[in-house]
């Protein structure tokens, strides 16, 4: 029940435990983990703007396993970089709004892990993998400053994801993301005439752009 305990610890206590070796999750573990994710989804939906996308369990389980293994790669420094491709496989399904939100149930912790890993070893191949994942799942990586263009089409097509993504950019005070043309109007609309009060740095940046 490695994955189940990992998810339970993550959701309920904010602490996680991982195995000392890379492993594959048992079927029973995946079934119980799915029950936890289902419950977590139902609770989390209440905090989402508008109506949250439906649950895509395949994406949710993939993301939970991905996060589990990522933590292992951060903690187990003896693991070889060549194992990354094998044990951190990319998501094979379509990144629909449902898949994005379902994966986000656990991938939302990715920015915190990114900062942790970067602090431990900036040159770690895992950091490059983090950026790659962040570009593929921008909804979960709103707090990570990204230099390359990201595909926001799936986010933009769903009002709940679009609003939540804007919320996260503002919450993280991510100026680089807020200035992108596809995000700027939403951030401006969210702050309204209170930008100077709610996010003074953004207000300064906008004034510079306008002037």
């Amino acid at each position, binding site marked *: 029940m490695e994955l189940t305990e990992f998810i339970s610890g993550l959701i309920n206590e904010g602490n996680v435990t991982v195995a000392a070796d890379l492993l594959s999750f048992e079927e029973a573990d995946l079934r119980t983990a799915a029950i936890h994710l289902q419950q977590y989804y139902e609770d989390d939906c209440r905090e989402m703007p508008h109506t949250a996308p439906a649950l895509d369990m395949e994406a949710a389980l993939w993301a939970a396993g991905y996060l589990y293994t990522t933590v292992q790669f951060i903690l187990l420094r003896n693991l070889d970089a060549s194992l990354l491709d094998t044990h951190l496989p990319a998501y094979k399904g379509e990144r629909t709004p449902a898949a994005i939100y379902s994966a986000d149930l656990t991938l939302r912790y990715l920015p915190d892990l990114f900062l942790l890993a970067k602090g431990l070893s900036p040159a770690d191949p895992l950091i490059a993998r983090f950026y790659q994942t962040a570009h593929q799942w921008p909804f979960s990586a709103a707090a990570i400053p990204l230099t390359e263009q990201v595909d926001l089409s799936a986010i933009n097509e769903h009002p709940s994801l679009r609003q939540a993504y804007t919320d996260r950019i503002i919450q993280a005070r991510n100026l680089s993301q807020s200035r992108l043309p596809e995000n700027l109007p939403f951030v401006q609309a969210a702050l309204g005439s*209170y930008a100077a009060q709610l996010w003074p740095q953004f207000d300064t940046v906008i004034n510079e752009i306008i002037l």
Partner: protein
Amino acid sequence: MTESVITLLPADIKVLALLRTRVDIVAARHQDLIWVKGIADNAFRQLPALNTWKPDGANRLFAPGALTPALTLPELAWQPLTEFIPVSLPASGLPAFATARHAVKLAPCPGTEESFAILTEMRTLEAYIAAAPQVRLRHLRFAASASARVLVAGVPLPPIPGTSYTLKDRILMPAGYDFDPPVIRSLLTEKLEAARTHFLLFHVNGAYEMIPDTSFVHVTRSAVRLTAETLTHVL
């Protein structure tokens, strides 16, 4: 100077009272008149007497200059003037206890204070938080009533329909109104013990509600939605 007996009208007791400290004068009431006996000095003679007599040793009364008595002095219960005219304390000049209650009234005022809270319906708030940016919610708190009315507090207030209120001294007043007279505000906060742990929400008609501090929770989408779920029977 000889002793005299005079009679006075009852209304002239105030004049007699001027001689109240004289120990040689006695008085008595008889047949609706005041009878006074004493040494006829100048002060005594200035009393507004109806009749004046000189008594002899046998209690016969002689009019001035008369050789024969006019009548016999009746048996009277003579009293010293200090007893005949007792003193009493004057009516107190201190204010009495207020027995009439003053109804609290509100009146329009010209103030332009920023609104701090808005009273609206749960459905209205629920619809707002569904679409509102989180940054516009996190500074807000709300308290809901069993009738699905909800008071949202925090600046800036959400742009939703409702009655807005200003806040001062833990009193929430309809925007554009103040007490009539305004001094009632300080009296209320002094008198109402509950004002330390409650917000007092006044309505325009002067009625008020007490809202405990502990009734307010942060506005989050989940908190509002969960509260709305508990009020489905009135929504």
